[in-house]
């Protein structure tokens, strides 16, 4: 028993010596720890389960945040069928420096929801460690960028419009020589339009944009040929002409 113990410790000492000698050799011939790393890149490791600090949410964290948010009665009420509200996107909650200064802080996500009936943004802040969800006060006039679903819906709205839909099909035929039969033949780029950004153009129905959720679509063919731009008010569900 005693001998075994000594043998084990001797091995430790030998290992320590060997390891330290190796470190010394590396230090001498490698030119120091800095030089060893020069120009080299560590293999990329992505362990999504240990994301921390400023790391963006992993897809799993986004899904979990969404599920936790939906279990909050306020959020569930907003998103229940028949309500005109939907999730815009989920991302890491932007913590204030007062929170991050200490070096560690709870992993939190924010779920942004737009309520088209009330024209407000609701923010559900989800603590991914405790599962607690806080639904903040709704904010008016803060128009976050459109989601993919909103852009697709706005395009469907244009295609369904008698005049705008026909014009888009005619233009597509003119540019490509073939028929526009389905929405995925079109590349859609979408952004928010604020009346305050272009007061000279935002007259009439467009004047409500900003207070209401207006999505401007840039439509091109898959290879980038221009098909036109359109403005859709998703709150009032109207196609809007800008006097540009």
């Amino acid at each position, binding site marked *: 028993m005693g001998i075994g113990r000594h043998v084990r410790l001797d091995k430790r000492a030998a290992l*320590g010596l060997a390891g330290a000698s190796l470190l010394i050799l590396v230090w001498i011939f490698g030119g120091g720890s800095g*030089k060893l790393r020069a120009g080299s890149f560590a293999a990329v490791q992505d362990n999504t389960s240990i994301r921390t600090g400023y790391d963006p949410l992993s897809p799993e964290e986004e899904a979990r945040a969404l599920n936790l948010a939906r279990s909050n009665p306020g959020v569930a009420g907003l998103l229940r069928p028949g309500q005109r509200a939907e999730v815009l996107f989920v991302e890491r909650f932007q913590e204030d420096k007062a929170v991050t200064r200490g070096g560690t802080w709870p992993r939190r996500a924010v779920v942004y929801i737009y309520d088209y009936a009330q024209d407000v943004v609701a923010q559900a802040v989800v603590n991914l460690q405790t599962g607690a969800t806080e639904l903040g006060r709704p904010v008016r006039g803060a128009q976050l960028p459109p989601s993919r679903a909103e852009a697709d819906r706005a395009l469907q709205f244009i295609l369904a419009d008698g005049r705008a839909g026909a014009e888009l099909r005619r233009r597509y035929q003119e540019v490509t020589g073939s028929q526009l039969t389905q929405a995925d033949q079109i590349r859609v*780029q979408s952004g928010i339009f604020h009346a305050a950004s272009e007061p000279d153009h935002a007259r009439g129905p467009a004047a409500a944009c900003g207070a209401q959720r207006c999505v401007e679509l840039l439509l091109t063919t898959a290879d980038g040929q221009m098909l036109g731009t359109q403005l859709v008010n998703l709150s009032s569900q109207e196609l809007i002409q800008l006097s540009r």
Partner: protein
Amino acid sequence: MIRFTSYIARRGQLLIWLLVAALVPFAARPTQVQAQSPLPCSGQFLIDHTFPNGGRWRLCWTDEALAGVSFYQVHFDPPGTATPERLILYSTALSQIHVPYDDNGARFHDVSDYGMGNNRQWLTAAECPGGTLIPLDTDPATNDFRVCRTQTGEGHAFRYYGTHKQASALTLLNASAIGQYNYIPRWTFYDDGTIEVGIGATGRLQRHTTNASYGWLINASSLPRGVSHTHNYWWRFDFALNGDSNDQLQEVNINGSGSDLRPMSISSLGTEAARTVSQSAFRWWRIRDTALTNNEGHAISYEIEPNASRVFRGPSYEPWTNAELYYTQYNGCERYASHNAVACSGAPSNASAFVNGQAVTDAVVFYGHTFHHVARDEDELYMSSHWDSFKLVPRDMTGTNPR
């Protein structure tokens, strides 16, 4: 670390220390052996890069729906053993890309209204020659984005007759598609502590006109003309030299333009301010820490080196265009140079409203840089990337040239 508890082990340890003591005088030590505080990020989001000269950058990157690729806790450790690692920026990100067209046909706010992260692009290996692609996540089902990380040679760091050195830089770039444009934000971290903040604009022309006052002919026929327009790039820099306090902006003007003497004036700003570029006064700014000096007793600082060949002033409803630099006290709800309402409930609307007389101790600088684009024939089919950048340069961080 293996713990030594027996006599034999202690003897081994003693031997090692004797060996170390004997070899230290012969060992090359280009960098200090110094414990670094861990950064609050992990995996591919932690960048730790050491150059051949021993200079070292450590920082966190992330991707945000609006601002796109953003950086947190940017640290630089100058080459050589004398100077410790410094925290330079607590955070930095794109703050807006404001794109007004000369014919007033559109005035876009790309960061807040479209989103750089929302419109991130997939980079292929061919777009990152000699570099490494860092994925947003490694799940092939959801991996739709990458940052290209490259170490590049930057030519002469200096030269004096027979003495010369080559410079290196770490470049991090990515791409976002907004409208017909593709933007390529490119951050270059040099081995002397300089940060070059850059962005490329490319893609295809988005708007056309028949009005010769506002466009340039790009086809053989009289139609169409590409509409001239401006890209006003804005960035937000939360400076943190030696932490969140004792920050101070100084403005340096070289007066006497047109005369034979060019006296320098240096003014320190204690409160928030909006400042404009001045080419004739060679104006530049620096953020210094009033409590931290280098080994020669000079306040360590970072210089904001404008690279302004164009100045944009918009209509009255674009008040943030009245200045290039907004010097502000940190406020987590002040993030976008325009359309800032998305930052927080009740947040001020734009950078001009961030300046409201507060004393500044924890400085956040919003800096704007303008590119005016008059289309040319070569812009079809695809526009050549137009690169814009300016630099944040260490001033008195080290007592001598760290390279």
